[in-house]
């Protein structure tokens, strides 16, 4: 993603630039939706929830467009080396972004349901988890855009913190649920929302793995490691 030189074939360069621009646009929309989903929950803002659900369609279409454009680039220009890795990674990143947007929709739908009931103070417990997940996502996309392998590896490791925070929150919510069985449905919704946030961290991690592959051609998924001199 960080190649500064230009292609001899102007159309190929433009196609690559367009693909990256679409991916950046998609990432912005997803980040915006992810933040709006929290506003819908913590701020009890049904308009924000509706916005997240409606805007998901545009994100879905962008995912399809990035796939189609990626395939078209492969078909027309037979990219190799960093170009090939960039195209394949962009297609995989867009799929992860789409899944993050789905998690945002999940949060918005649960929030809309919860907003019909009196406010539950524990909804605020979601905020730090959301903040961590949002930061991971932003840092992952940043690492991908800049081709920053070290940053990508750091973000991948940082996902463990999110997992830990999620487990603690899940335990906490279970305890509170037992203390207030009358609001069990709201607590269950919060449990689901916490789970969605934990999954966003997994997608950020996947994006980091794609960033490393795009930049360094090393597959660090499933226990794979960077060579020691990378």
């Amino acid at each position, binding site marked *: 993603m960080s*190649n*500064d*030189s*230009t*292609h*001899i*074939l102007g159309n*190929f360069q433009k196609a690559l630039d367009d693909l990256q621009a679409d991916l950046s646009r998609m990432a912005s929309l997803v980040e915006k939706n992810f933040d709006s989903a929290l506003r819908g929950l913590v701020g009890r803002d049904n308009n924000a929830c509706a916005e997240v659900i409606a805007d998901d369609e545009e994100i879905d279409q962008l995912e399809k467009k990035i796939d189609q454009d990626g395939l078209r680039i492969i078909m027309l220009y*037979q*990219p*190799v*080396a*960093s*170009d*090939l*890795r960039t195209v394949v990674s962009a297609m995989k990143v867009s799929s992860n972004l789409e899944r993050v947007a789905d998690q945002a929709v999940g949060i918005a739908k649960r929030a809309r349901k919860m907003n019909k009931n009196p406010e539950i103070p524990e909804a605020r417990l979601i905020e730090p988890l959301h903040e961590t997940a949002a930061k991971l996502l932003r840092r992952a996309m940043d690492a991908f855009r800049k081709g920053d392998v070290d940053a990508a590896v750091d973000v991948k490791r940082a996902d463990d913190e999110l997992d830990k925070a999620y487990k603690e929150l899940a335990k906490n919510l279970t305890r509170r649920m037992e203390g207030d069985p009358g609001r069990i449905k709201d607590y269950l919704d919060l449990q689901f929302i916490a789970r969605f946030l934990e999954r966003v961290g997994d997608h950020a991690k996947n994006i980091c793995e794609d960033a490393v592959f795009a930049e*360094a*051609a090393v597959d660090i998924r499933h226990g794979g490691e960077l060579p020691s001199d990378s």
Partner: protein
Amino acid sequence: MDSSTTSQANPAGASAPEGAGQMSIRTRDVDLFYGDFQALFGVSVDIKPNIITSLIGPSGCGKTTLLRSFNRINERYGNVTTRGTIEILGKNIYDADVSLPELRKSVGMVFQRPNPLPISIYENIIFGLRSHTPKPELGRRGDLDDIVESALREVQLWEVTKNRLKDRATTLTLEQQQKLCIARLLPLKPQVILMDEPCSALDADGIERVEELISELRERFTIVMVTHNMGQAKRASDECIYMYLGKIIEHAPTAELFLNPREEQTAMYIEGRYG
């Protein structure tokens, strides 16, 4: 046909130096000059047996010069000076005791345009054998028939030519002519086959079939091929050598070179970049 290139006698019949390793071709610090013009600079490369190695790079980078130095055919142009060593199966082909005819028997060559001789298909196949073998040792007509059939079968030409062996080779299609040019090397039992853009004169079908044939031949020969066609280098070769301005920039397994070139210059070339 002996299927083990590494166990064959080396070209020119001389014995291999100790510890020459398992490489088919090994060059060290090769400089080559056409008059005052230096075309190769300190080329050191090891080419493995039984694989296809492609030489790639922009026009004028020295890939054909390097290819032609493996059987010293460059010297036909005159005014060529070569320094360094080029070993084929462990024997330096620039040693004084090397016989050029023997070398070229061991290291066959296929050119860009098919160049069959304007004689019959049959005579084309045994032409090399006739040139390199004293008449009493040439064998009887029946033996020669077997050699012709075997060579044509190896290049998948037997079925289409068996009833027209006396026809002129130039009446064949370009694809068939190129296959014939490969077939006529085989009776000489070469160890290495050099190919200088062997498909550049062929149409898409011809390219596909000749590539298939080359792929089958790799099991028994060391094949070194010059190609301008990146798609062909990717499809048809096991290893690639990228050359630029007479130097070897990178030598790697093909998939590795096209997925993750180590050298920036290689990446710029294969990706088609500048700046």
